[in-house]
């Protein structure tokens, strides 16, 4: 790691264990090249994501949060991803209203066979967050 490396975003990823995590795994076994900026937490379902987790991640200083789950209709628990969708939709809009850059909260549907898509999602998300700069929202003065 070079001493004066430019800032790299730290992004927290919540990946559902049935689809997205498997998809990310596939990206790995397929030797896809993509940025290493997403730190992954495996969750049983995207429906596990309480908006509290997103806010906590931003509070801790993560530059972005990415929630990834199964495509609508394919959720292992039937409806978990529908709930995630509603929750993240209102969370994004609300955070934007209070002054948080909307790019910091991201979501994707990545299935177990979409290793390609996963690497693309990570590349796109990393680039977007890199463009808006580090998260100084909660920095003390």
């Amino acid at each position, binding site marked *: 790691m070079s001493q004066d490396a430019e800032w790299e975003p730290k992004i927290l990823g919540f990946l559902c264990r049935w689809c997205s995590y498997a998809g990310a795994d596939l990206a790995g076994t397929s030797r896809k090249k993509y940025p290493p900026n997403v730190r992954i937490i495996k969750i049983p379902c995207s429906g596990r994501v*309480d*908006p*509290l987790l997103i*806010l*906590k991640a931003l*509070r801790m200083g993560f530059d972005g949060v990415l929630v990834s789950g199964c495509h*609508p*209709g394919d959720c292992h628990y039937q*409806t978990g991803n*529908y*709930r995630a*969708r*509603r*929750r*993240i*939709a*209102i*969370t*994004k*809009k*609300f*955070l*934007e*209203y*209070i*002054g*948080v*850059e909307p790019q910091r909260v*991201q*979501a*994707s*549907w990545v299935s177990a066979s979409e290793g390609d898509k996963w690497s693309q*999602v990570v590349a*796109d*998300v990393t680039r977007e967050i890199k463009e808006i700069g580090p998260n100084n*929202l*909660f920095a*003390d003065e």
Partner: protein
Amino acid sequence: MNDIESKLRTEARNLLEQGKVNAIIGFAPGSLKFTTTPLITGDKEDTDRLVINPFIANNLSVFIHDIEGPVGIVAKGCDARSIVSLIQDNQLAREDVFILGIPCPGVIDLRKVEKLVGRDRDEIDDITRDNDRVTVAVGGENKEFSITEVLRDDCLSCESPAPKEYDLLLGEDNVVVGDRELSRSHIRELESLPPAERWEFWKNEFSRCIRCYACRQVCPACFCERCFVEESEPQWISPLPRWQDNLVFQATRVIHVAGRCVDCGECERACPVNIPLRSLTGKMDEIVEELFGYKAGTDKDAPPLMTAYVPEEAEDFIR
């Protein structure tokens, strides 16, 4: 004593006498001027103390879960919506509440009156309402205001001041003088600011939060037995009152009650340090309507907002 009051007292007494309810929840005169206080009683003699006036501020539905068995409750439009929302969430059964609906002409915001006359409530002699005019007797003078100048902001944007769900409606279903734009003007103001300035605004507001949790305690939608902020393993939010954590607490709370919050404004009224909480809850109200066409507490048979879904909706932000 007005007409509605006398009807209410009779009905409430009857409900207790006939054993139809174990307790009545309503409003009694407060111990300070221009204040009422919740009256929760199983004693039919207490029903003579029930009042209906422009200061019946509390959302009484927050007390229902304290009472065992059926309860009779005085409900303005917003309270009735909270009750419907609680029924949707399986927090109470419809047959366990007897809703004494009050077509609400709006509650007066004392802070607004104080600001308009430049005096504390202690110096004000009287506040009387006559339809859409309000007279404030202070310092020997009578000052007149239009009702839209002194009504609570949430009353100004209220779309159902008379309960739609009730067992008895005490009075005529009426329309309150509303001014939705005026009521949401602070939200519009904030939206016109660049994001960094909005964040600075909230940072400043939450610097004085003392974490009394009054906002949470008066809210009927906050019915969790153990709030996320009380978890210590893991500790999601520090209990220390730093602005960062105060803001995260409130933002999370508002998101958690989305779809259940009926914008009754009690959180803002309860806040002892004057944080404009309705500029958060009111916005969430708008978000929920904009995204899902949902209005809290309007349909007791509808699934709660956050458990419902339509196969295709709100996808535009998802990759």
